[in-house]
């Protein structure tokens, strides 16, 4: 991981020389490359972000808060929080279960399971939304049966939750699998020999060992759950005050040329992104620390 390596050099004339520099590019190349990266970052990330906030406040602070507290916007915020509150805990449980099975046990079909977990990453969100329409929609496979029993999934909250669970499925599992594989099963075995039950082993040994990685996965999962547009757009039906999440609400406002309100709502999502970024950096730092102590423990 270390970018520069200190190379011991032979002594000449009894004098010690500083270690050789590994980055040998001339100064102007380094300035040019750094400058390019910064310009790219500014153009594609910082300026749009600043635009979001400046347009959000373009009609004054009062208009900004009006846009957020207006009933339709408020309903969208509530729905988004509700969807995340259902999808994230469920994917937390699915993710731990899948990672546990994959990292700690040997079974046939393991690689198929890993591929399936990755599937939502490789499928376009619109397609994943469409899958649910084809399954549960009125003309879908289960549509007539659902209609007969008066259950509505598509163009209703359940469909939005299902689509969100689908697109956010890999986050927790993907984060935990390598961590759990690196930790192996010896600590769990030690706990079992000492008389701990299966539940005690998971609760007292496995979970504490993965808590930072787990939190990291949950934060990414949550960010995606709140920000998901494509899949949710297909199944939602865009009913204002009922099936509109924050990203969909932004789109509607924008299409109505109400750009100040659209950007005000969008600034909420941007703010969420910044929070996520901060939490992510903190957790990455914790995880790195954990990995280094792990390597110290098992130098082989």
């Amino acid at each position, binding site marked *: 991981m270390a970018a520069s390596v200190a190379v011991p050099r032979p002594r000449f004339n009894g004098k010690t020389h500083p270690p050789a520099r590994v980055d040998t590019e001339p100064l102007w190349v380094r300035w040019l490359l750094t400058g390019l990266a910064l310009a790219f970052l500014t153009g594609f990330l910082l300026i749009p972000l600043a635009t979001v906030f400046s347009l959000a406040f373009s009609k004054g602070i009062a208009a900004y808060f009006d846009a957020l507290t207006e009933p339709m916007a408020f309903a969208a915020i509530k729905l988004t929080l509700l969807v995340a509150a259902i999808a994230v805990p469920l994917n937390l449980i699915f993710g731990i279960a899948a990672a546990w099975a994959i990292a700690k046990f040997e079974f046939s079909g393991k690689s198929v399971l890993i591929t399936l977990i990755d599937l939502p990453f490789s499928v376009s969100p619109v397609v994943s939304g469409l899958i649910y329409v084809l399954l549960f929609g009125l003309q879908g496979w289960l549509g007539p049966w659902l209609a007969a029993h008066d259950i509505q999934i598509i163009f209703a909250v359940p469909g939005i939750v299902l689509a969100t669970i689908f697109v956010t499925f890999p986050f927790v599992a993907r984060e935990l699998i390598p961590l759990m594989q690196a930790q192996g099963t*010896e*600590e769990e*075995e*030690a*706990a*079992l*020999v*000492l*008389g*701990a*039950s299966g539940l*005690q082993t998971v609760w*007292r*040994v496995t979970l*504490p*060992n993965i808590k930072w990685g787990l939190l990291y996965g949950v934060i990414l999962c949550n960010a995606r759950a709140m920000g998901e547009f494509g899949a949710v757009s297909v199944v939602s039906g865009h009913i204002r005050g009922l099936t509109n999440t924050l990203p969909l609400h932004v789109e509607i406002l924008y299409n109505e040329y109400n750009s100040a309100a659209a950007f005000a709502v969008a600034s909420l999502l941007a703010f969420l992104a910044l929070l996520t970024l901060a939490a992510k950096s903190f957790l990455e730092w914790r995880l790195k620390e954990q990995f280094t*102590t*792990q390597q*110290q*423990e*098992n130098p*082989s």
Partner: protein
Amino acid sequence: MSIAISNIVKTFGGFTALKGVSLEVEAGELVALLGPSGCGKTTLLRIIAGLDAADSGTILFDGEDATRRHVGERQVGFVFQHYALFRHMTVFENIAFGLRVRPRAQRPAEKEIQRKVHDLLSLVQLDWLAQRYPAQLSGGQRQRIALARALAVEPKVLLLDEPFGALDAKVRKDLRRWLRRLHDELHVTSVFVTHDQEEALEVADRIVVLNQGQIEQIGTPDEVYDHPATPFVYQFLGDVNLFHGRVHEDQAHIGEAELKARGQLNAGASATIFYVRPHELEVLRRPDGSQAVRAWVRDVRRVGSVIRLQLERLDGHGTLEAEMPRERYEDEVHAVQKGEQVFVRPKNMRVFSEHHHGSGVKD
């Protein structure tokens, strides 16, 4: 607690790790399972612990069938090669773990736990480390904490999987002597796995030599070292020189040399292989009748107080290694140098009966 293992078979896919192993361990004994890597010794240990299940065969603890007993109910302590300490817990909590996870009715009071953990910490002489985390300890300290953790639940059997395998040579030696003293104090039935014959010879009451999923020999350290049952045991417990030759009327014929047969030579055996340890080879400057094999010195190496000679037989039948204390090298062998000629006479030879020939014999 005594352990009786009979006819344990274990396969992993197409690989048979244990081919019907039977073994009895008496109460209070310290037994070593010794063998090269892949011989099945760790698998056997894990089956005794209940961490793996045997395909067939039975395990009795004190005469009671424990084959299907759950790992948590076997009352064994297990010490892992890489310690397996709980990394997010302090040393204190690691040792207390086995007591804290007990059902409420059997769980000792907090005060009792405190007392017990501190007793164990002083037993392993690390009481000042109670509030540290495993990552802050050295390898030797971690292994002693792992041992204390295993002892906290007062196991009837202590199982150790290559307990010193990950430590450096000096710590290893200290720790295995310490383990022996600890065992003499506690008298808990113990089985430990090792691939290091020196460790097994020094620490164990009895040694079980395993090879390719089968037991080659069971015996005290002296028995397996002095009276190895098979060529494999002989070779695994130390360095060895091989002489191809024949036995005729109590005389061993090796090349041109005729040697008086001392030791256990089976009369009547024809072509045979003689096994001689490097320190049992006598090196002479002058011929002693026809009783020696001629060789020239290829190399002389000093390893501390011991001299090792690399010899090449003049009749072209390969190389030999002789080992002797420095004093003898200087006095009796007159500090023979590279390139000089010597006469080699085995002081002690072993012959294994015919059906063992070829099994594990390197030539």
